[in-house]
């Protein structure tokens, strides 16, 4: 008991000292939005109320357990009913609950108000990464895919774990400070959830539907979160990293992204040779396919088939183009048609048909993908 009470007090202490503590590991993360702050304070308030009731009720119980013992000669009383008392302990909790419901209602309504955003970003959950499309506002047109960047060797203990182990990505989401950011969530395969604790945001990403939520960060910094809805094998490995930066830095970032996107926008009619496509394809494969089919092409049968030696990969190319473009209904094999460009698809398909033990020698050109779409 005492250990429980002591830890309870520890939470309280931590809660009150929160303004000075940067990173608390026993309480909600330090909030950086209005909503997250309201949640933080509401939780502290609830905790205090619960603790007071807890101490009152169990104070009585433990006193009674101590005093009303047979070994101390206690003789049992015979009362077993008292309507007044029963009404009192029904009505008082109702009043306390009303007091709790009031601030909660205000926050619920505020959280739902996604109107008039400065910037709208669509977050798409994929097995197992996040894609961001800047749809409206400054930065419109920026697209990025955000993959876990912690090396596999750190997971397997062959390398020391870094500070942001499992909470770091290759391409973070970047937003300006003080602006209302509306996040639209959706998913490509199964349900995911976009969650950044410090921003006070968690919203399920549901395939085939769009949901929304919003935040306005009051502080610059890097805020990290995770996918919160079980989404299969690598559910634990699709973190979210949001960089909140000044408006100038944001504008610079947008310009840089746009420049990169223009530079890499390939001519869809370009004719590639095998070696070029294989090099490109290997990168695409590592980022998009290796989670399931594994870098060595052996897959994890029977859940994820091997591509090395697969009849589909070694057979007629149309069947494989079809599979990768449209996916396979009801399986984890998603349709990659929307995520990847013609060139990327051509590259990854060419790569799989010419990697490991597969030696078809065939080259698939972006134009063929465009034709198959």
């Amino acid at each position: 008991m005492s250990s429980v009470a002591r830890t309870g007090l520890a939470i309280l202490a931590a809660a009150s000292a929160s303004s000075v503590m940067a990173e608390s590991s026993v309480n909600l993360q330090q909030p950086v939005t209005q909503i997250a702050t309201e949640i933080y304070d509401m939780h502290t308030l609830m905790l205090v109320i619960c603790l007071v009731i807890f101490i009152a009720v169990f104070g009585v119980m433990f006193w009674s357990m101590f005093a009303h013992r047979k070994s101390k000669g206690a003789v049992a009383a015979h009362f077993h009913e008292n309507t007044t008392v029963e009404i009192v302990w029904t009505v008082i909790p109702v009043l306390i609950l009303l007091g709790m419901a009031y601030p909660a209602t205000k926050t619920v309504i505020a959280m739902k108000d996604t109107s008039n955003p400065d910037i709208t970003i669509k977050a798409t959950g994929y097995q197992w990464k996040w894609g961001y499309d800047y749809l409206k506002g400054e930065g419109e047109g920026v697209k990025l895919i955000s993959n876990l960047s912690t090396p596999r060797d750190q997971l397997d203990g062959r390398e020391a774990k870094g500070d942001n182990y499992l909470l770091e990505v290759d391409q973070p989401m970047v937003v300006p400070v003080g602006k209302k950011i509306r996040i639209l969530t959706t998913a490509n395969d199964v349900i995911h959830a976009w969650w950044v604790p410090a921003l006070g945001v968690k919203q399920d990403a549901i395939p085939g539907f769009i949901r929304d939520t919003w935040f306005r960060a009051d502080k610059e910094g890097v805020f990290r979160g995770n996918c919160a809805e079980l989404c299969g094998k690598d559910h634990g490995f699709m973190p979210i990293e949001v960089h909140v930066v000044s408006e100038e830095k944001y504008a610079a970032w947008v310009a840089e992204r746009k420049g990169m996107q223009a530079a890499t926008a390939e001519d869809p009619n370009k004719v590639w040779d095998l070696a070029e496509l294989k090099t490109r394809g290997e990168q695409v494969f590592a980022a998009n396919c290796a989670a399931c089919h594994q870098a060595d092409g052996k897959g994890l049968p029977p859940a994820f088939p091997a591509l090395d030696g697969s009849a589909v990969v070694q057979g007629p190319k149309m069947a494989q183009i079809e599979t990768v473009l449209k996916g396979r209904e009801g399986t984890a094999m998603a349709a990659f048609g929307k995520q990847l460009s013609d060139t990327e698809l051509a590259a990854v398909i060419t790569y799989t048909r010419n990697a490991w033990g597969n030696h078809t020698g065939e080259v698939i050109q972006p134009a063929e993908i465009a034709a198959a779409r």
Partner: protein
Amino acid sequence: MAAVIPDHLHDHHHGPTGLMRWITTTNHKDIGTMYMIFSFIMFLSGGVMALTIRAELFQPGLQVVQPEFFNQLTSMHGLVMVFGAIMPAFVGFANWQIPLMIGASDMAFARMNNWSFWLLPPAALLLLGSFFVPGGAMAAGWTMYAPLSVQMGMGMDMAIFAVHIMGISSIMGAINIVVTVLNMRAPGMTMMKMPLFCWTWLITAYLLIAVMPVLAGAVTMVLTDRHFGTSFFNAAGGGDPVLYQHVFWFFGHPEVYIMILPAFGIISEIIPTFARKPLFGYASMVYATASIAILSFTVWAHHMFTTGMPAVGQLFFMYATMLIAVPTGVKVFNWVATMWRGSMTFETPMLWATGFIFVFTIGGFTGLICAIAPIDIQLQDTYYVVAHFHYVLVAGSLFALFAGAYYWLPKWTGHMADERLGKIHFWCSMVFFNITFFPMHFLGLAGMPRRIPDYALQFADFNALATIGAFGFGFSQLIFIVVVIKCVKGGEKAAARSWEGAQGLEWTVPSPAPHHTFEVPPVVK
């Protein structure tokens, strides 16, 4: 010789012996015993899965199992514990105790009773066997959310059939309990004189009949989406993945009360016995139980605050959920008032019962915190929720089951259980339980998601602590096996009224309860 054997000794069962006796038995005591042994075996299997999970989470990094197997373990741990361990254990208690407590000779439908039990082992084989099929066991979480569950291999189909079978078993058991309680009470035992355990089970049985078909419907829709081209949960075909969650939780929330109401019943029997004072507020206990049951149908979407409901939806489910705290609070107050000015002793059952009130209430409070929609949006799918439901399911349901087992073991075996071992079992469980699950509140608050095989470094210390606690808790349960075996084999002879303050018809028959009891109904004044 036979002529000189006194009547009540002669009353062992007649009919087949050996294995066939157990397969064909229609006796409520035999069936109750089988339910309890079954559920304990499932409890140990689910426990092995839990310990494997905790071993993997002992340190950051992947050491013991790979992510896909980890997901199978968490999913099956949940299913096995809910449907294999907790629910059948309570049905076992109902089988043994309800006829004894209302003065009936057996359950109303004795043959069906046999069936309800014997459906369970095949279901368990399907569940546990699915680990060994290609693709392994179902790994979509015990909630089996679509569309992830549509992606799974054949382990999913096995889980679906297992759920169907266990559902049929539960419904048959529930119908049996309703009919027994309503029709077979001894003369003079009016509804409002009935022991609270029977009341809570009656209400639970109605819940079971209402919601098990809903679960069966949900998993059947997954099955047809998987194999027969329907699109209930596939937007591309006009369906909606969130529909699954609504249907599942319409079952799932009452299910939570299915697992806790009978526990309330057990505690309400034990506290008065050892306080030597009648239960405070009997009538309000009955009404509180009924209101919890009714409210439980109106709160399901509090599991879905992050799916993106409209604000009115969130507010409705938040208010309804908060309301449940009122009748639950009434129960706790009534128990404390029963203890107040009693003449208490703390034998093992009473220790478990007071332990239950204490830790269960922590789970109740964290439930209230989760009911507040904005807070829940931070806590949903984190370790805070894991902590919350283990406080109500382990410290709640399981501790009440142990309390009840220690309380009625003398009636079942004819011997008093070993007090010293029972107390050690209690203290070890209590301490290790809190070491395991208390830190999980902190993990969840600080942002650790549930159902992940590996985690960021700031969560390392509490995870290591939780793992140590979990192993301690797991091994402590072996003490219970020793206690039960010792108690069956021998020990201090139990009197008919095995505890000084015990009231109720079950204490009027000898210990152990003879094979047939109340063939002539007792009269209750």
